[in-house]
Structure formats: C-alpha cells, structure tokens
C-alpha cells in the first residue's frame, strides 16, 4: 500500500533548452521549435522517424518525456497531463486547410492531431504504455487536480508511477514541465513542491 509519494525526476523544456533535474541536457540557437525539437530529439533518439510526423504539441510532449524517461522503469506508468491551449495550434492549421472551397484539401495527418490528448497517446505509443491517462485543460497548471488524481492512481494501485505535467504549445510559444511521481524519493509530492517546479 502506497502511503507517501514523491516527485522523483523533472524535465523542463522551454526557450530552446532542455533541463533534467536542474542539469542542462540540450540547448540550441534555433528560434523555430521545429528545428530545435528535431535536433534535441535526434540527440537522444535517432531511431524514431514517427517523431517527425507529429504536430508541435505532440513533439513537445514526446521530446520532454524522452528525456524524462531515459533510464527509467516504465511498467505501470500512468500519464496525467494538462495545458492551456488544447490542440488549438493544430486546429488552426486544419481550419486553414478547409477554408477555401476551391482548394479544399484537408490533411488527414493534420486532422488526427486536433485533440489535445493525442500527445498523451504519442507518449504511450513511443514507450509501449497501456495505462491510465488523463488530460486536463486549464488556464494554469491545475496543481490540486493533478496532484489528487495522481495520488488516487498510486494509492489505488492503478499505477506504480505517474508521469505528470504541463505541455503547452501555441503559435511557437511553448513550455513543458513534466515530472515523475512515485513512492520513492525525498521531494514530497505536495502542492507546494509542485508549485516550485513552475517558478
């Protein structure tokens, strides 16, 4: 029975850099997310061409998860994610492709990403997860909701560990703060400590 839970590992992707547990892992001068994410992903995993077919939100989530989950056990790993803009960045792209009746060519590859929780699906596909997942949309990271749902997953035995966090992408502005919650560690999974990750 799980009693105490801890924030075990953290990955932050913002401003063209990737930091894992305060250690800088990658940075780039490229201002476009597409180029930054391509270089960053190739550095850690050169063998997953599916990454390049994803929309920007999924690339951000999969990229952050790749660095976060490096060397980590993934059995019974659940996902609890959130963001502000949902899949709006891709929704806009899809809308543009169906705007003109004469040039009406909606792209199936774009359309499949017009749901925010697809990025959780992409993480699951990449790591072979068949576990619980939830995606919340809120103005800011819903600390209490994410925390209590994560606690429920761990304490009810539905998951051994939970990958939690914020993955926001809209019009080239992005921010990802992902962390693993588990029964092991020293940094307690408290609302206060989660809040510190976003400071």
């Amino acid at each position, binding site marked *: 029975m799980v009693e105490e839970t801890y924030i075990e590992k953290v990955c932050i992707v913002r401003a063209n850099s990737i930091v894992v547990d305060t250690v800088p892992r990658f940075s780039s001068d490229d201002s476009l997310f597409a180029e930054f994410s*391509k270089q960053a992903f190739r550095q850690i995993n050169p063998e997953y*061409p599916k990454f*390049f*077919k994803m929309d920007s939100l999924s690339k951000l989530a999969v990229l952050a998860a790749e660095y976060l989950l490096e060397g980590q056990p993934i059995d019974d790993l659940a996902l609890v994610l959130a963001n502000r803009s949902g899949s709006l960045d891709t929704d806009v792209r899809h809308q543009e492709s169906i705007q003109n009746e004469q040039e009406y*060519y*909606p*792209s*199936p*590859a774009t359309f499949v990403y017009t749901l925010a929780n697809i990025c959780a699906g992409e993480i699951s596909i990449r790591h072979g997860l068949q576990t619980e997942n939830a995606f919340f949309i809120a103005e800011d990271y819903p600390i209490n909701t994410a925390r209590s749902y994560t606690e429920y997953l761990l304490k009810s035995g539905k998951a051994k560990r939970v990958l939690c966090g914020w993955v926001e992408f809209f019009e080239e502005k992005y921010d990802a703060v992902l962390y693993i919650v588990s029964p092991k560690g020293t940094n307690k999974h408290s609302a206060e400590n989660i809040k510190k990750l976003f400071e």
Partner: protein
Amino acid sequence: MAELKEELKGKIIEVLNLEDIAVADIADSDPLFGEGLGLDSIDALELIVLMDKEYGIKLSDPKQGKSIFQSIDTMAAYIAENRTK
C-alpha cells in the same frame, strides 16, 4: 515517366514528412508500405489527398489504393494514365 517518378518521390517525402529519407533512397520498385518505406494508414490517406491535389485524380474506391500504392512504379503508371492536371 522517369521525371514523374522523381517528382513523385519528392512530393511523398515532403507530404509525409519522411525526415531521414532522400529521393535517391527510394527505389522505383520498393514497397511503400510494410517493410519498404514503412508507411501507415494515415500516410495512405495523405497519398489519396496528394493524388487529388497534385494530379486531379479522385480515388472513389479506397480498395483501389492497395494496388496503386504498391510502389513508385505502380503509382506513376496510374497517374500517367489517369491524371487530369
């Protein structure tokens, strides 16, 4: 026909975001799905859109795709015979 095949390879790479594949990497007879380029079902739908958008070919029966999209050879032959633009 050779020109059409080269053009087709370039368009497929661009439309399907085949990041690590160059035109020279695709042989005319390579299978596009399965063990060849490893395309998936969404890619197949993108190829149907590509046929319509670039060559004015509407595939009304998705089953046709299986034979048309076997390789660059089969795609180019079908396009050459049926293109409206």
